[in-house]
């Protein structure tokens, strides 16, 4: 593993000067950021701005997982990719862009579908996980792996003109299973390919995911621990609501939690594939 920096280099001080001026961040907070590692799951609409802001801010090691390849219809909102990289794996495309912005950080592309056999080992290597994925099986898998590994999960989602965001499994906040113990019926799940999404909505949510992850790394309390942010980009309403605490009976993080590994077959349990290319037709 990478050695922690004990102090900022002269280059760091110049590059991150706009952060160092902030009393809430200052040298200590920026050191927290450059010494942190984050895993971004999904290099699509949410992952694009998240990766851009994490790399810019100087997160020391950034992993990006995505099994998919860049295609032209992604470019309407997935602003980390470009036409030249159409056909390339999204994780590779994202790491290329991040390295161009900041050569001082380490960027690692994982060009595969996150599954039970890989998730836990991978997540253990990172401090903070950003859920920028697009389907329930992956969201439950990530949740369980984060609970088992004790990592905060900064979760975002977007569809049409709406977005949702919260920080699971951090400082007493509930996990995804506490709030949603059972998976949604497959016919109620709509992805962006079916329902559409207005580009900047994914931008707003993904950028706030980066904001929250960076605050955690900098030692600042995130705003959406135990709270859900709901964005309605059509009306311009941003609404924050209080979520329940951890559920005592939660199988993942409750008092008598039975989860000891990633034994669930997440795709079967959710009744749908984690790969949206074969997803069943959604009606809602």
């Amino acid at each position: 593993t990478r050695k922690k920096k004990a102090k900022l280099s002269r280059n760091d001080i110049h590059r991150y000067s706009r952060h160092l001026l902030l009393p809430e961040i200052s040298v200590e907070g920026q050191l927290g950021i450059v010494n942190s590692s984050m895993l971004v799951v999904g290099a699509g609409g949410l992952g694009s701005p998240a990766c851009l802001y994490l790399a810019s801010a100087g997160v020391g090691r950034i992993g990006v997982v995505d099994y998919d390849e860049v295609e032209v219809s992604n470019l309407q909102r997935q602003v980390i990719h470009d036409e030249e990289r159409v056909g390339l794996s999204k994780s590779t495309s994202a790491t290329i862009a991040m390295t161009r912005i900041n050569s001082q950080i380490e960027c690692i592309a994982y060009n595969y579908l996150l599954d039970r056999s890989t998730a836990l080992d991978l997540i253990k290597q990172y401090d903070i996980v950003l859920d920028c994925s697009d389907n329930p099986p992956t969201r439950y898998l990530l949740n369980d792996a984060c609970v088992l590994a004790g990592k905060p999960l900064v979760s975002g989602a977007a569809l049409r003109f709406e977005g949702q965001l919260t920080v699971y499994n951090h400082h007493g906040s509930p996990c995804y299973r506490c709030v949603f113990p059972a998976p949604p019926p497959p016919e109620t799940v709509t992805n962006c390919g079916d329902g559409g999404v207005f580009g900047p909505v994914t931008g707003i949510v993904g950028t706030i995911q980066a904001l929250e992850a960076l605050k955690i790394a900098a030692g600042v309390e995130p705003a959406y621990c135990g709270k859900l942010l709901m964005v309605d980009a059509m009306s311009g309403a941003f609404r924050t609501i209080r979520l329940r605490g951890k559920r005592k009976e939660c199988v993942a993080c409750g008092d008598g939690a039975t989860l000891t590994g990633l034994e669930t077959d997440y795709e079967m349990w959710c009744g749908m594939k984690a790969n949206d290319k074969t997803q069943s037709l959604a009606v809602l």
Partner: protein
Amino acid sequence: MKLTLEFTGGMELLFQGTKKVSVTLPEKVTTVKTLLPWIRDSLLKSKPDMFMQGDTVRPGVLVLINDADWELEGQLSYELQEGDTIVFISTLHGG
């Protein structure tokens, strides 16, 4: 009793796109437990399974009572108050 109901995250598509509606409840509807079937029978035009399963909301729907998760307010047993706002949110999964 008068309440405000809101539907978001796609739930509004079950209600002809209605995001917010004021309703006057019959006297027998006093709790969230009785509110759910009333909404299903009075406001929903089709696909009741997309709204309820058994006597509660279907998985993937979050209910808010005055901007707090309904789990904090007693869930189905919550006694409705004049002027309450009850929100039904369909969780998003897209990215």
